[in-house]
């Protein structure tokens, strides 16, 4: 994915670009918590994907409609329940895992309706987060985590290490891992749990499950 291919002069985040690069051309894609539909709109426009979204915010849903992205207005788990097994090639959960009430259920549902899941989340193991808690003794508050403890929608933070462990326990196959700094620069896996602000995991059902 290069910027020159884009027709619209929108500001595209690198994590969106990377997620986009993980999606095959023409894939059937479901984006959970799709927001204003930017990622889905790009997938439809650039990769000829058959895209669907689920979003709870009414205003964001309207933006999706204006973009021509088919979207379901409502709760993610409820919306997922509307789909049949294996209806999608790829199911995306971008920067929303930490806001779901029941992450195992969401991920289980993602891999029921889709063959492959792409999940990105802010890494709570990032050094700045650890420092803020250790040195300042305060809840982390930074670019990646802009909310305060009292108004955060985030209820289920995890670290890169936590998520790998979770995959192992749930018998999920980690196909790819991509890491970005808090400023959206791509980095290698070396010390990712310290250095990554954002982690992107591509997971699949283990073959024997």
């Amino acid at each position, binding site marked *: 994915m290069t910027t020159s291919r884009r027709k619209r002069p929108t500001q595209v985040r690198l994590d969106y670009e990377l997620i986009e690069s993980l999606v095959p051309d023409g894939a059937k894609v479901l984006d959970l918590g799709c927001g204003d539909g930017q990622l889905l709109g790009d997938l439809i426009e650039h990769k000829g994907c058959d895209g669907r979204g689920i979003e709870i915010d*009414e205003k964001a849903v309207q933006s999706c409609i204006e*973009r021509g992205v088919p979207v379901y*207005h409502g709760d993610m788990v409820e919306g997922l329940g509307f789909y049949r097994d294996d209806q999608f090639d790829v199911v995306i959960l971008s920067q929303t895992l930490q806001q779901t009430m029941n992450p195992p259920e969401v991920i289980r549902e993602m891999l029921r309706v889709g063959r492959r899941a792409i999940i990105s989340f802010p890494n709570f193991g990032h050094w700045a987060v650890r420092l803020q808690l250790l040195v300042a003794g305060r809840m982390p508050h930074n670019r990646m985590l802009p909310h305060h403890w009292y108004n955060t929608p985030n209820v289920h933070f995890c670290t890169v290490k936590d998520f790998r462990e979770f995959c192992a326990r749930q018998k999920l196959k980690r196909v790819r891992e991509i890491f970005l700094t808090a400023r959206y620069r791509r980095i290698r896996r070396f010390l990712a749990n310290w250095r990554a602000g954002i982690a992107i995991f591509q997971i699949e059902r283990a073959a024997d499950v």
Partner: protein
Amino acid sequence: MSIDDAVPISDESRFGGSQSVGLVETNYFTFAEPPNEMELECGQKLGPITLAYETYGTLSPQRDNAVLIVHALSGEAHVAGYHTPEDRKPGWWDIVIGPGKAFDTTKYFVICANILGGCKGSTGPSSVHPATGRPYGLAFPVVTISDMVRAQSVLVDHLGIRRLLTVVGGSMGGFQVLEWAVRYPDRVASAIPIATSARLSAQGIAFNEVGRQAIMADPNWLGGDYYGRAVPQAGLAIARMIGHITYLSDEQMHAKFGRRLQDRREFGYDFKTEFEVESYLKYQGDSFVRRFDANSYLYITKSMDYFDLPARYGSLVRALEHVKAEFLVLSISSDWLFPTYQAKEIVKALKASGVPTTFLELNSPYGHDAFLLPNEPLAATITGFLANVQRRVREGDETRTPPS
């Protein structure tokens, strides 16, 4: 569903305003002349059939910009603009139809017809029975939503339109939208059912039946044979009052009327109209009687009661599995006549069938009738959806990818 209350007289939509379709007239199309009567779902034959309809805007040379608006229980063909410069109010959904509005008449060719069984120019129980020379009354066959839609399709043929860009309607209009998409998958590029359901609920049937009982209990009803005499005003007015309550919401009634008294400061300790809400309902009932036929009310509510897509096809998923239209399903948060969960049942079945579907619950305190009121999110949503449908239709890549 209600018209009296819903149409605002905003400055910009006044006659002659730049966003009005201006002066319009009703046209009439007659078909199914004997011996080629239309066979109805009930098995009886009906003909000739006349449909009253209006159109606004221009049909494109490719004939690919036609929008069919289907109306609810008390609607009519006159959906936008004015019949005379003296008209006090425009057509019933003028807020979304006209230059620059959601159904932009500079882009789209808008059609609206009075339903079969209606009393606003289309053939119904108040029309003259060709065999007797007198109004049908209860000799009129019971018509269904399918019959109404099949009649509309003949009109659409007559207008030279193979495929509609969209079919849109709220409430019972939504029934017709679903019927169109199911019955004529190749003739509908998109569908916008609003505040509706795939089958009328027991609660909906219950309210309809109370309305019908009110009409039939009126001594003037005379078994439906009241034409040329006093009409069953009291019964029809009560039916309308009951209906109207179901189109509003508790919250809105409280805000609009509260417990305020009308033209008095203290209780009269009698049974005259005292509360503002009583006065309002009475006004709704009385004005409805002047413009609506009681027998049409019976027939149309009956057609609603019979509507049940899941039962007809075995399940809603099976009903919708051959649909080719893309869908925009809208519900209203405070609608208790057609609650959001009923819209979600449609959405669920559409998704299971792989139909590209957008669902939005509009947040509004105004109850079922909210779709008839000025509603910026509703207008913006339709505008955006329709623009994308038209783009896809013109690009010719609207083909749906069926689920594997």
